[in-house]
């Protein structure tokens, strides 16, 4: 058995949470609430020191210290000096959300975040998921001397097109379109089956990890 007090605490909390399997109970609730509190505190501390202090307060202090050549407004790519006052202000405005009467001020901060991410996601999905994925689907359907690979290529293309047509809303799924979408459903079902299998794998792995912790770190059985 471990002689580390911390490991005992961790092991007990692990067991508290597992007790939920028997039924919802005070031990589980205790652990759950403790977890929420600790993680909220931890996120504040982490983001304060690693981002607000490092990327905002540090560079701002340096910019206005008078030691940097060019002064606080000598801005160049990657070194924004005095201009970092703006994100600092927008960050502070976010906290107006805690006060009903002035919470509209936080919209300026949200506008920045939403604008940046809408732009990044739009182009990221357009290039990485739309164009690149369509491009990768343009493959020879017959590869001389490789009947197996050719068959797979044909099957893949049929599956892709049929599944795409399944998500087509401008026409009722009847006739030829109905037939294609039916094939699409088969492919989708196989992919959900694969998803099911891999999700099972993931969850079981997490359980194995907890048992390895209890057996190894706590009970020292291995």
């Amino acid at each position, binding site marked *: 058995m471990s002689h580390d007090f911390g490991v005992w605490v961790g092991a007990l909390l692990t067991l508290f949470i597992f007790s939920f399997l028997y039924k919802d109970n005070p031990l589980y609730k205790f652990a759950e609430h403790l977890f929420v509190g600790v993680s909220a505190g931890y996120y504040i501390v982490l983001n304060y020191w690693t981002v607000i202090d490092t990327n905002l307060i540090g560079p701002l202090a340096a910019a206005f210290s008078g030691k940097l050549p060019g002064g606080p407004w000598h801005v160049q790519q990657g070194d924004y000096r005095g201009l970092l006052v703006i994100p600092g202000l927008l960050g502070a405005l976010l906290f107006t959300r805690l006060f009903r009467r002035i919470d509209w001020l936080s919209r300026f901060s949200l506008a920045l975040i939403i604008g940046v991410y809408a732009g990044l996601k739009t182009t990221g999905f357009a290039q990485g998921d739309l164009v690149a994925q369509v491009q990768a689907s*343009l*493959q020879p359907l017959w590869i001389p001397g490789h009947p197996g690979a050719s068959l797979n290529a044909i099957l893949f293309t049929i599956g892709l097109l049929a599944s795409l047509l399944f*998500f087509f809303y401008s026409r009722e799924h009847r006739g030829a379109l109905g037939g294609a979408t039916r094939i699409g459903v088969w492919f989708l079902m196989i992919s959900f089956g694969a998803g099911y299998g891999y999700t099972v794998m993931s969850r079981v792995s997490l359980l194995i990890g907890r048992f390895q912790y209890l057996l190894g770190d706590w009970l020292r059985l291995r």
Partner: protein
Amino acid sequence: MGACVVAVLAAAVLSGVPPALAAAPAVADSVPAPQPASGLLFSDVPNDAGRAIDLHWALSPDDSVRNGRVVGYRLERAPSPAGPWAPVDSVGAGTSTTTDGSVERNTPYFYRVSACGPGGVTPSGACAGPAIARSSWFNTTRASVLAFTVLFFLLVLYYMFLAQTGRKPFVRRLAGIDAIEEAIGRATEMGRPVLYVPGIQDIDDIQTVAGLVILESVARMTARYGTPIRVPVAYPIPFTIAQEVVRSAYLQGGVPDAYDPNSVSFVSPEQFAYVAAVTGIMLRDRPAAHVFMGSFYGESLMLAETGFETGAIQIAGTANVPQLPFFVVACDYTLIGEELFAASAYLSGDARLIGGLKGADVLKVAIVAVVIVGCVLETLGHHGLTVWMQTQ
């Protein structure tokens, strides 16, 4: 000369040369100096903001035969052919290219390459230049991305415009919507409530918005049938919206008195606390219909399982693909991925949502055509389309 070699090697080590170079002085006496590299060429790196220059040279003849006289090359640059020279990069033997990523844009540079070996350092005879890095106005490798993006945006805007001017484009009714209505009908017959779960995410997840839009129509149906509805919500903002949505549905249905203020309840953003509360409702109130529409994570299977056990009709919809299998096997009907958004667009009749849906539909047909044409071209050995779409 000896001092120069040491200085050069020291500079090379500082700038991260392969370790072999650093060990050179030990055998400096026995090996002759390498023959020089030649033919140094430069070119501005295309499609960037003028921040880099590509360099390319022909290997030293000693490097080509691998006789151990060359261990690497050293690149230097200067503002004029006369110097002063400053180190840019060092690379190992057998390498004949590098990129200088530390240039100022629109500034001329002259480059030279030296072959380094245990026997000494031999600069090439001539330097190359002036090399100037310039900003580009368009990244040509992204032409296909631009084409698809512009086409899609135009389609979406066109159909939005069409829908707003009253010519609403046709969108088919999804079977899942009929399934919801049927389920509410059965709950009414059995005199039991309907449970509606709008996902477990906050309002910034677009699926939550879709879930709340669908809630509006579901609440209108329950108001019409006079069936109680229960809506547990995980986050405060979606909670207030859900309250508003349900109340106005009862108001519009002409039965404001039938609205129960307790029908929409705020639970907790904590995943398992939320599940415990919802499964509690399932087991205690025994709703005859469960509707799950929105963003779900690992808890989806716990909801679906408990719901299945109670024998209720279950209808689900989510765009979180990993959770779909659990809904598909345990629910009577599942809206798959995009279908969730399609259902919300259909039910709301909102021109802006329908515009997006129709634009995507037309682009899908275009993609089907591109894939068919592309595959045929590839089979016939023509690679033009594939190369054009290549973005990297």
